[in-house]
């Protein structure tokens, strides 16, 4: 530690090498070894998009529906696929990579190698963005902190599982979020808006975070925060408020940048008149509240309670009648479509006892919490508060959103990684959140071949970064009111994930010998999502507590 504690120690003289180069090489080699792993239908989706952008003119991209995997990402992603499709070598194209079929694509190993390489290559941008985060640190201590952030993001098991096995381009997409956040940290608000607009045009799921960006940029860059004194009289104050609050030039800058980005993205499609079709593809509301495998959010718990009530009503006489009276349902309940435990595998979930959930309910719940968090951000727009708000927005939308996928957990983990180093009080909820969300990704890879890999990589990530964050987090500046026992409970929760995964895996293995265990197939998935949902909801509670009630966490930290 001796050289670390020197106030102006030169980076090269420290034993630490604050370069992500090593991390990149090691993880890339590992990712190449993952080429032969299982890939999901998302692989075929992206292959189909390559074919669409390669074979069809731009105006038909959003109309093409030969395959069921239609293009439903915003235009920049389509442009990205267009760019990739230019790079497809003829050998790979002939291998089945470029082909529009109604069936699932028939492609060989060459296509797999090509597409997986594009994921690895596009992810370089994430490493560059994170390296920039490290290089723009103001002190050695902050550099160390940012290095831990960068490592934890670049080595995240989420990217290994979702991008390099399951197949998606999240690493590439999140690099734009990182660029945007780093620009906000440096005070380059126009660039921040620019990169976030770019991000939105790549994947519209980031719209959930948009309120935080909007309010923060508006408040910190376009509005003069001042104290009004009573001496000047009401009229003068009112005049100041009305005509000298908004910094119009800044507002126009931001507006121009954002509109320019959207114009580039949407312009061609407006020109061809395919905008309505594009919007229809981007925002389909025909899907159900939850997936077959419940994402670990509030609705998982809600559905679980309904399941428990059904079982209670069926087994204990009298409960059904009471519940029907209490929940205003018609008695007796028709169990016909609730009978099998496999009911969850069919997409639409109908609740028997609890009230039905409409898209508008989820929308209002999300909006309510997001707006609630915006108030403090608007009044006191610090960078720290902004990170908290981004995390909070992503988190509430994950918890209450309509048709949320467990992959969306990265949406809150990445911004949370940026703000967890601000205060050690945030650490317990960060640990619970990351452990629970990464474990909830396990059912994505259902095969036995990847089981050991996903378990080991998640385990080692949790252990390594639990200790590293513990070392680099700011100590709380104020006396903490948190109960120590709660932190202990939190560690117990994280450790109980291990036996849970092990037991479910054992049941899964043994179900081939014992038919009685086969019925538990859905129950084990339900255990995953309910247990993880429990962790994510409770850590959200403690995060909300800190966000709304503990201002010391969100203050500007003095550079040490």
């Amino acid at each position, binding site marked *: *530690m001796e050289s670390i504690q020197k106030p102006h120690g030169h*980076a*090269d003289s420290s*034993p*630490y*090498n*604050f*370069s*992500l*180069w*090593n991390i990149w*090489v*090691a993880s890339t*080699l*590992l990712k*190449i*070894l*993952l*080429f*032969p*792993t299982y890939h999901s239908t998302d692989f075929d989706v992206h292959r189909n998009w390559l074919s669409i952008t390669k074979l069809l003119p731009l105006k038909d991209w959003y109309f093409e529906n030969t395959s069921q995997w239609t293009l439903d990402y915003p235009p920049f992603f389509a442009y990205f696929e267009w760019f990739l499709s230019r790079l497809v070598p003829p050998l790979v194209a002939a291998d089945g990579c470029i082909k529009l079929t109604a069936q699932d694509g028939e492609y060989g190993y060459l296509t797999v190698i090509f597409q997986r390489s594009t994921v690895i290559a596009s992810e370089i941008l994430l490493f*560059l963005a994170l*390296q920039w985060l490290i*290089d723009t640190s103001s002190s050695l201590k902050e550099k160390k902190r940012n290095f831990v952030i960068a490592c934890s993001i670049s080595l995240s098991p989420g990217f290994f599982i979702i991008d390099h096995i399951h197949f998606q381009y999240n690493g590439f997409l999140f690099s734009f979020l990182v660029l945007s956040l780093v620009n906000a940290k440096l005070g380059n608000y126009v660039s921040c808006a620019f990169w976030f607009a770019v991000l939105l045009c790549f994947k519209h799921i980031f719209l959930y975070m948009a309120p935080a960006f909007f309010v923060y940029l508006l408040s910190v860059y376009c509005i003069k925060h001042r104290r009004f004194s009573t001496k000047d009289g009401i009229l003068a104050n009112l005049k100041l408020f009305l005509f000298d609050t908004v910094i119009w030039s800044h507002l126009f800058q931001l507006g121009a940048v954002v509109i320019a980005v959207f114009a580039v993205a949407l312009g061609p499609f407006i020109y061809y008149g395919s905008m309505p079709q594009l919007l229809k593809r981007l925002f389909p509301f025909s899907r159900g509240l939850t997936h077959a495998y419940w994402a670990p959010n509030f609705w998982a718990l809600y559905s679980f309670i309904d399941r428990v009530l059904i079982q209670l009503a069926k087994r204990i006489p009298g409960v059904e009648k009471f519940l029907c009276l209490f929940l205003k349902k018609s008695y007796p309940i028709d169990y016909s479509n609730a009978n099998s435990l496999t009911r969850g595998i069919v997409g639409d979930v109908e609740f028997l006892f609890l009230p039905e959930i409409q898209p508008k309910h989820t929308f209002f719940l999300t909006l309510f919490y997001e707006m609630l968090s915006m108030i403090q951000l608007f009044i006191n727009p610090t960078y720290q508060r902004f990170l908290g708000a981004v995390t909070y927005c992503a988190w509430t939308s994950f918890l209450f959103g309509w048709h949320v996928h467990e992959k969306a957990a990265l949406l809150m983990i990445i911004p949370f990684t940026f703000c967890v180093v601000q205060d050690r009080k945030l650490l317990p909820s960060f640990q619970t959140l990351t452990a629970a969300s990464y474990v909830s990704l396990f059912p994505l890879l259902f*095969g*036995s*071949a*990847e*089981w*050991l*890999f996903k378990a*080991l*990589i998640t*385990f*080692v990530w949790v252990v*390594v970064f639990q*200790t590293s964050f513990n070392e680099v987090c700011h100590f709380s500046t104020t006396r903490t009111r948190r109960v120590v026992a709660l932190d202990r409970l939190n560690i117990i929760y994280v450790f109980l994930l291990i036996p849970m995964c092990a037991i479910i895996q054992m049941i899964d*293995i*043994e179900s*081939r*010998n014992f038919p009685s265990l086969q019925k538990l197939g859905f129950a084990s998935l339900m255990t995953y999502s309910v247990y993880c949902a429990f962790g994510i909801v409770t850590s959200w509670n403690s995060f909300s507590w800190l966000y709304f009630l503990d201002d010391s966490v969100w203050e500007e930290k003095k550079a040490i």
Partner: protein
Amino acid sequence: MARIVSLFKSSPLNDFLIPFRKAQNQWVARYIIIVFALIVRSAVGIGPYSGEATPPMYGDFEAQRHWMEITNHLPISEWYFYDLQYWGLDYPPLTAYHSWLMGKLGSFIDPSWFALNTSRGLETADLKSYLRITALIAELAIYIPAVQMFTRWMGRYYRKVTTIDQTIISAAILYQPVLIIIDHGHFQYNSVMLGLSLLAVVHLLYDNYCLAAILYVLSFSFKQMGLYYAPIFFFYMLSACTWSSDTHSFDLQRLISIGLCVIVTLGVQIAPFLIFGGLGQPQQILIRMFPFDRGLFEDKVANFWCATNIVIKYKKLFTSEQLKAMSLALTLLGILPSSLVIFFNRRKELIAWCLASCSMAFYLFSFQVHEKTILLPWMPIVLLLNEVDPDVISMVCWFCNVALFSMWPLLKRDNLIIQYFVLGVLSNWLMGNLSWIRRFLRMIKLPVKYRDLATPVLPHNWFWSLVIVTSYLAASALHIADAFVQPPRSLPHIWIIGNVVLSFGCFMLFWLWCNYKIFVMCTTPESKLKTN
């Protein structure tokens, strides 16, 4: 005063592990390298295995599975007799018992994996995962702790290196690709045999002769190839009895107890066969283990006989009996120096050197050698990384790369091409052998920190530098030719033969260098060696 190793100073391995160098965190580093070693192995295990989807005979994967099948369903007396044409059991009894146990455990999961006769050629994803995990557990339980114990002893008592540097050295050993790719790619349980031998060496270092003897016997009764180490173990223990440091005279008690340990260990393993199968069993086991009627060499392998066979057609010139005698004579000559050295000059730091030289002599000159047999010399040679000497380290790295290269034809057949290149790059890069690339990356303004290149890729001696550079260039040329140039019709195996000749040349030179180093070391007084 503890020496600080500067050898791996600018290597990525050092960069990864240096954050753990505080005394209270050093144990973390030891476990971190193990977990990542497991992650790399499990990632390799996702890839293909030998004989995947190639009926009717498949490959080593099917052989291992088949042994689990027959040991679980047949009485012990039939194990070495059953349908010998289809992967009949030809490993020693401990492998049979190990197969029985793995088969039993696997049958709890899915009995159909090991159903008699009907399971032949079974290739389900779950079966593959199960066998992969058993290989991983075997390595985790035996080989990995043995490596750590060995480096700890060497670091503590011989070369005096700090704990974190011991961890770095054991990581350098654990990420060597040869064993990873054979055990977890191609699929075998070599880590059990190698790990037991290594544990035996560790116990020799701690002067536990009986335990060492038991472990070594277990090692070669898992896989007969372990006998390549036999001369060194034998002469070391004999020397320990002849010039005992306790009694300063011939230690008969020690000799008898070692002998008893060997006999009892062997006896316990053979006993079930004798009891349930009768006296004919041991003979059949020996016939299966040592198939001398299979000829001098089978496939293309980088040893003396196969390489020189290009010019001298042995099989036409000599009878099988003559060839056996010739190979026996050459092998004995080859193992003589190391055996004599370890007998007359019993020093603990020489064990790894002598094991390397002895097993290399077997590989180069003996009968019926397979390309995977390079694992035997490979194991003691990577242990030489504990000699904290830049010249030795660069020679060892060179050997490891050539060893990997010599298995290229086999791995290509197994379709382990990606794994071959990735693991090759990974281990070299981790040890800093690729650091020179940083200079070029820095020129094109990539975020690379430049530090002095403390790790020498090449030894100081110009001759060896020339040899190493030439061999790397030739190997690259062969790879390029193999990938892009169609071999002439008259010589369809030209690239494989090129591989064999090149690897043989390198192995031969390495063996000579190894013997030379042993000679230098045993003529240098011990005190001078330690302060060096």
